[in-house]
């Protein structure tokens, strides 16, 4: 059983080696190989209680297995993408300048991401809300360095992220304290105690899950950070937050007796998705659009959580998997486009579709996946959400559809700009003057991801069936 500790110890141990080798090719390769190994290891390890640490249970269950699998797989994908983006082009002078900054960022990203994964692993194994919150807080502190990297223009994203996550931790500690008290007393939990705990838990998760109005950490990270690091934050943090929330309601089903918690989760999800989708439609750059599209998608997942039902866990996990796929694809496409233009504003990428058609197409495919459009991996869970929410309130379904359309409009606006002819000004930095195309390894990487998202859109069972095997033993209390 102690093998489960490998999920924490391995990335932590290798991070030091990767840091020492960060300036050479081997460091990146080791980081990618280790995350791939961890991805494989996660689903192979036996489940059950690992041990007790000072009276707190450390346990690997089926839900943790899937969420950790997604975390490791996403990080492996991002590492591979960065390797493909930077390593083969050292000799190409035209690309060297464009990729210099990305290489510098990657040197910090590889070891820091491994330590963050270790902390998330520890958080996922812990069954005590307070300890989980502290591990997540530690990961958030380290993420500040990943978000900021070597950018000197602004500290807004990193500061907002740090502040909001740090403000959530005390709420979780108070909730954990109350939960401990109820469990130690052994008696029935009073209604007022349930409401108080639900309030702390609700506010804490609102900050973690970027629910409106606590969303600024997510959107500013997407717009200010580089695409791979932004994708890493946007993928990993919500997965751990959703996993922790799911564990909490599964372990403490009395929490769902709260008058406000479940309704609050549904309303928060719908409002977040609606506002995120609406704001997506009016963004002027792919960086900002990535943030608001991810916000819309996260709102949908939160709403799914609140709606519950027998298939809730499978639907949420399928949704998280599709989101992971879309964000890795988006990061790959934005990183590829950054070879042409450092800025991902719509005006700056004008005409990019003619030089990098696969990256442009991949960006739109990823955006539509986040929007839950038909024939993309996000459609199955999106359809399930609409189907479930219509029964509760048809107006909420309308808001979610409007949000989804908003995200799609945002990406179609971006595509229109990428298809527009770039104005020729004679400036050597203009896209029309720079005859660059996608590096072929990235071309293959992006093509595979596009095919993957379309395949899962047409055959959703390929995603849902394996997830069902893992979540069959999980009884979700919200019905």
């Amino acid at each position, binding site marked *: 059983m102690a093998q489960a500790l490998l999920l924490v110890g391995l990335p932590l141990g290798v991070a030091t080696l990767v840091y020492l080798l960060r300036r050479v090719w081997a460091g990146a390769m080791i980081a990618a190989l280790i995350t791939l190994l961890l991805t494989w290891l996660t689903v192979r390890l036996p489940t059950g209680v690992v041990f007790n*640490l*000072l009276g*707190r249970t450390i346990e690997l269950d089926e839900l943790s297995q899937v969420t950790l699998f997604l975390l490791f797989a996403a990080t492996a994908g991002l590492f591979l993408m960065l390797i493909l983006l930077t390593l083969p082009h050292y000799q190409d002078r035209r690309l060297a300048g464009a990729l210099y900054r990305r290489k510098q960022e990657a040197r910090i990203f590889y070891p820091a991401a491994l330590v963050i994964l270790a902390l998330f692993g520890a958080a996922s194994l812990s069954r005590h809300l*307070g*300890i989980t919150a*502290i591990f997540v*807080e*530690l990961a958030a*502190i380290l993420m*500040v*360095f990943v978000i*900021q990297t070597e*950018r*000197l*223009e*602004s*500290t*807004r994203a*990193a*500061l907002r992220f*740090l*502040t909001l996550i*740090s*403000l959530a*931790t*005390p709420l979780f*500690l*108070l909730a954990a*304290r109350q939960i401990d008290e109820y469990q130690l007393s052994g008696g029935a939990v009073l209604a007022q105690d349930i409401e108080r705990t639900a309030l702390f838990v609700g506010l804490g998760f609102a900050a973690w899950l970027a629910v409106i109005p606590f969303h600024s950490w997510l959107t500013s990270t997407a717009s200010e950070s580089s695409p791979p690091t932004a994708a890493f934050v946007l993928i990993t943090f919500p997965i751990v937050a959703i996993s922790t929330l799911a564990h909490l309601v599964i372990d403490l089903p009395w929490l769902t007796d709260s008058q406000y918690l479940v309704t609050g989760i549904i309303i928060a999800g719908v409002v977040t998705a609606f506002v995120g989708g609406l704001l997506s439609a009016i963004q002027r750059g792919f960086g900002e659009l990535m943030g608001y599209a991810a916000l819309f998608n996260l709102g949908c997942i939160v709403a799914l959580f609140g709606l519950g039902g027998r298939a809730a866990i499978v639907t949420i996990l399928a949704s998280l998997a599709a989101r992971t796929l879309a964000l890795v694809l988006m990061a790959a496409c934005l990183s590829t486009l950054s070879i042409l233009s450092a800025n991902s504003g719509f005006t700056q990428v004008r005409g990019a579709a003619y030089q990098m058609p696969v990256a442009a197409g991949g960006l739109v495919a990823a955006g539509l996946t986040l929007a839950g459009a038909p024939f993309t991996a996000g459609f199955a869970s999106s359809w399930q959400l609409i189907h479930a929410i219509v029964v509760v309130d048809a107006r909420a379904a309308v808001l979610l559809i409007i949000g989804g359309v908003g995200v799609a409009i945002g990406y179609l606006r971006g595509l229109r700009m990428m298809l527009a002819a770039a104005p020729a000004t004679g400036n050597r930095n203009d896209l029309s003057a720079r005859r660059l195309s996608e590096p072929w390894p990235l071309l293959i990487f992006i093509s595979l991801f596009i095919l993957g998202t379309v395949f899962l859109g047409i055959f959703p069972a390929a995603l849902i069936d394996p997830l069902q095997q893992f979540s069959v033993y999980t009884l979700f209390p919200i019905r």
Partner: protein
Amino acid sequence: MMPTLPEIVQYLQSVSYDSALLGLFITAGLIIVSRDWRLLILALLIQYILVGVILSRIVQPDLAVLKVLIGAFICPILFLSAQQVAGSEVSVQAVVLPLRRNKLVAVWRRLGWRWSVSGPVRRQKLAPTGAYFRFMVGLLLILVASTISRTFPLPGLAPAVSTAVYWLVMVGLVVLALTEDPMKAGHGLFTVLTGFGMYYNTLESSLLLAGLWGAVNLLLALAVGYLIVVRGTGLDPEEGL
């Protein structure tokens, strides 16, 4: 002869709750009004000591001393970061002030009033609110904290301690709402966490959680310090001008 730690703790325990609360009104008030980093860090350090004084009468003295020690580690981290940035700010001011041709501002600064009125040049431009506004907000928060602590007293705590917890948390949140400067926001964040810690330490006796929470606070200081330095290093000339 140097007093021993138990003697110091015994002496500090003689300080009344009301005196400590008054001290917290002043230190957190300075954090909300002031923009001078030296004054901010000093206020934060005194705040940690005052919280330690209050805690020494409620929880085990060791835990109270630990709280003060954590503060004593956090403040130097912030000080060293701010000191690094201060050098770059001086150089920007040397360029900016002559360009502005604002003699009055320059004289005002030399008089040493910058902490209460404007702060360093770049912060002056970023700040959305003035010193008088922040002062009035501080006064308002004292009233709000006193009222809330009477209406919703925290279980098991003296009224003055309840007021102190509410006051620190509210001041910290207001500071966070008013600024995006890492130095000032960091102080806001630590003020919130100090207020929370004061309440939480009376509830939780787990050494594991207390130790982890202390480590989190120290690492937070490192992250805030990093952002302070980054912000200072990346000083945008347009911001200063």
